[in-house]
């Protein structure tokens, strides 16, 4: 094992080499070396992102070193960006760090295409105006002056992540036009097709002698064969239909139970335990049908990403009933079960062979699709097609709402419903929004000064204006909560920064690796109550 594999062993077990490669080619921008910002970078530098850049125009204060582990006593008075970059860079010799001690807005004024070099932009504790500006540039990727074709595929979008902590409250927001995931890491990918067996599977079942006198042999008939035998018998007696009602499923269970010779036949127990799941008809899930009907799937162009080309190939495969029986490619994975080695290995190879056959069909379609849009056949590697087929029932497309939509086209009905739940922590979202307005009005954050309680009424005014803009009553948000925000006085609590830093770095890892499912779109944590929620605002 090489040194890198040794160092990254515990994470490679989660996202594999493909995920690691994606991380290593990522360049992350952090706007503002805040406590939460440095915590996020810590959790990304450690697993080995390629590069990071810290932008911060400020110098290190006493308050900074009280809440930020990556600014120390010796940093006092020095540029925050420089010191944060140095102390974060020490965490991993394989990661390259850069720093710029300037204001982000002035950088963007000089070079609107500046953000296009980054895979992800993380902006912490910024004003609403700055957030909107950066988010909008990430959304179109600062296209002015940039030839989009010179940007390598997969880097065409810069994900934007907004992060804020105030006292016990932390929040994060993801905005990226479209995020596609193949490796969603579902708990179980087994796909046994007991309801729609293919010929090789039926032949396998028939190879077992259920009347055998050999107890060991009987006790080792794989449960898939047992289940199939009884399912086929059931179907013959019921006009080819599988059990659908609860009573029918119990009848099938009883039939299997009647075939047991002793109460200890584990293989029969396994078969009985799998009845409920096997009686779920194998179909194309509605979420996948939605992907098939997506205009990006229907209308491929030479600009289409491999995800959409593969999705289209999958659709064409499913539509070709002779080849697919209208089903997705087989995953080819089976669970462990009580069985002799030989029969288990045989069963495994039957499923694998069928999966391989499906992959070959999809692969042929992929090549002809590539050709039809003017791309070279074979330009999507077989391994990528295999992974896509294996997880085809679990593909995911997330289209985020932009910050512009959040601010200008609020989901009023949804907001009213979130606020009607007395346990909801949506009020914290409203208070963060109102705090931004308060800052615009007063030039300081709620509760920042000595006479902090004087800000409560004014902040409540900002809350009410926001509520009114959504057509909601004034009293929806308790004044106790507004008072609480002023109590925090825009202070940083390291634990909250570290919690949000952990959450955001998980989300960034998911965005970069295109593995696991990131949240859509705003996460709120209230450390006073130790509760959190995600809202698609």
């Amino acid at each position, binding site marked *: 094992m090489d040194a890198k594999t040794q160092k990254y062993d515990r994470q490679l*077990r989660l996202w594999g080499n493909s995920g690691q490669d994606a991380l290593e080619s990522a360049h992350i921008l952090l706007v503002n070396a805040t406590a939460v910002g440095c915590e996020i970078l810590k959790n990304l530098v*450690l697993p080995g992102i390629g590069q990071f850049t810290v932008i911060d125009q400020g110098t290190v204060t006493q308050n900074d070193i009280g*809440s930020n582990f990556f600014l120390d006593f010796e940093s006092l008075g020095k540029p925050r960006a420089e010191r944060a970059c140095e102390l974060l860079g020490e965490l991993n010799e394989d990661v390259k760090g850069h720093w710029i001690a300037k204001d982000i807005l002035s950088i963007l004024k000089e070079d609107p295409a500046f953000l296009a070099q980054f895979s992800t932009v993380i902006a912490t504790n910024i004003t609403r105006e700055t957030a909107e500006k950066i988010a909008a540039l990430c959304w179109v990727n600062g296209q002015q002056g940039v030839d989009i074709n010179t940007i390598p595929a997969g880097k065409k979008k810069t994900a934007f992540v907004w992060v804020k902590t105030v006292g016990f409250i932390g929040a994060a927001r993801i905005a990226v036009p479209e995020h596609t995931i193949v490796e969603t890491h579902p708990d179980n990918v087994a796909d046994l097709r007991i309801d729609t067996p293919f010929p090789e599977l039926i032949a396998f079942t028939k190879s077992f002698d259920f009347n055998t006198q050999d107890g060991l042999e009987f006790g080792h008939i794989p449960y898939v064969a047992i289940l199939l035998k009884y399912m086929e018998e059931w179907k013959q007696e019921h006009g080819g239909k599988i059990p659908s009602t609860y009573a029918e499923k119990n009848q099938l269970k009883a039939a299997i139970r009647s075939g047991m010779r002793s109460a200890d036949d584990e293989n029969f127990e396994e078969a009985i335990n799998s009845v409920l799941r096997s009686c779920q008809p194998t179909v194309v899930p509605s979420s996948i049908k939605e992907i098939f009907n997506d205009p990006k799937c229907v209308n491929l162009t030479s600009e289409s990403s491999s995800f959409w080309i593969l999705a289209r190939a999958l659709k064409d495969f499913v539509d070709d009933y002779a080849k697919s029986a209208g089903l997705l490619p087989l995953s080819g994975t089976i669970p462990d079960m009580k069985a002799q080695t030989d029969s288990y290995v045989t069963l495994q190879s039957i499923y694998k062979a069928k999966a391989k056959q499906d992959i070959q069909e999809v692969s042929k379609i992929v090549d002809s699709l590539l050709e039809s849009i003017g791309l070279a056949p074979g330009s999507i590697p077989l391994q990528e097609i295999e992974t896509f087929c294996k997880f085809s029932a679990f593909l995911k497309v997330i289209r985020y709402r932009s910050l512009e939509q959040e601010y200008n086209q609020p989901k009023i009905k949804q907001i009213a419903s979130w606020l009607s739940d007395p346990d909801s922590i949506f009020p914290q979202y409203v208070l963060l929004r109102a705090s931004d307005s308060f800052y615009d009005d007063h030039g300081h954050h709620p509760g920042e000064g000595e006479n902090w309680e004087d800000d409560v009424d004014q902040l409540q005014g900002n809350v009410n204006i926001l509520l009114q803009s959504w057509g909601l009553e004034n009293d929806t948000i308790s004044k106790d909560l507004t008072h609480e925000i002023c109590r925090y006085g825009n202070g940083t609590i390291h634990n909250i920064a*570290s919690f949000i830093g952990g959450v955001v770095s998980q989300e960034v890892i998911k965005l970069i690796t295109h593995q696991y499912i990131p949240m*859509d779109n705003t*996460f709120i944590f209230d450390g006073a109550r130790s509760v959190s929620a995600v809202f698609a605002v």
Partner: protein
Amino acid sequence: MVDTETINENERWAGVYKLLDRNSLIHPEFEPQEEIKEFIKSCKILVIGAGGLGCEILKNLALSGFCDIHVIDMDTIDVSNLNRQFLFRRADVGKPKAVTAAAFVNKRVQGVTVTPHYCKIQDKDENFYQEFALIICGLDSIEARRWINATLVGMRDEDDPDTIKPLIDGGTEGFKGQARVILPGITSCYECSMDMLSKPTGFPLCTIANTPRLPEHCIEWASVLEWPNKHGDRKMDTDDPKDIQWLYETALARAKQYNIQGVTYSLTQGVVKNIIPAIAATNAIIAASCCNEALKIATTCAKNLNNYMMYSGNDSVYTYTFEHQRKEDCPVCSNSATKLDFKGDKTLEEFMDYLKEKPDIQLKKPSFTLGGKLLYMQAPKQLEETTRPNLAKPLKELFASGDEITITDATLPFSLQAIVSFL
């Protein structure tokens, strides 16, 4: 360059001090007082584990204003720790975690003293644990958690509130984790929730020996059956790449023989060391939750978690906060015996295997007694030999249904009283 005197405590801790200086309408029972600030500076806090969670916990406590922190850990630093244990560098590999972590935090955060204890938690006695205001655990071992939990529950004297040592426990696996607050004798304890754990992974010996199907079966065969065959009394060192290589090659040869695919070096290591995937991000989340609760408990500036929060990041971000209930027949924090149901015609050995696997019991080497009568003793050797024949006997020959038996295990600091009813 500024000298130490220029540190302005009020500016430095402005974030935390606002919480402590200002009243709250949400937590009206909280009364701001200067003594609270003094308390977090002077109280002693113990961190158990200086690994992935421990490094984070030490940092968080230091930046919460706690100044007298102790850390206990028996491990040394391994290369595979470096992807998340951020207080360690490549040059530190091989050094004790507790010592290295303490030195780093002491250097980075002025005014904080972290005292390392490079030893097992079992090496310390009640007098040691009695000194701390609260204890935070960042462990990956069930056994160690059960030990500290039982020890702290046992230390509680109902008439002396100072003997209640809040225990905050965190754990992670991949993108998931949990944080909880245990008030010994008041809330549910670690032992109360043993049934939430999944069955300990292990494969039946007959599968490993006769009908291997998975690569894991071949690896278990190599480590459990083939190793003692080929190496006699020499104990396997799972940290030694040579031993892992031998296991890998042996497992691979067996897999080839049986036509089983998927034996790799990495899987071999994963199976024999029972490796749990771990990343910095999840450790940060769980450690921060634990320390947030520590700050709330120590200062009362907000209500603490009551008493369990689960976190999952696999699909979106999801937390679930709930009150885990005490178990009425908890062998540690209740005074009543645990109730077990088992067939009376099964043997004591089968009963023992059942207890090893049962998630809420998970014994390693249990001994059984009935009143003064020894049913089976793991040690000393002589007693083991004289009681061994009982293992093959059905339970109903050894005691009657409804009898209360005592089960002890070297890994547990308590004995389990169990009423066994025959099915």
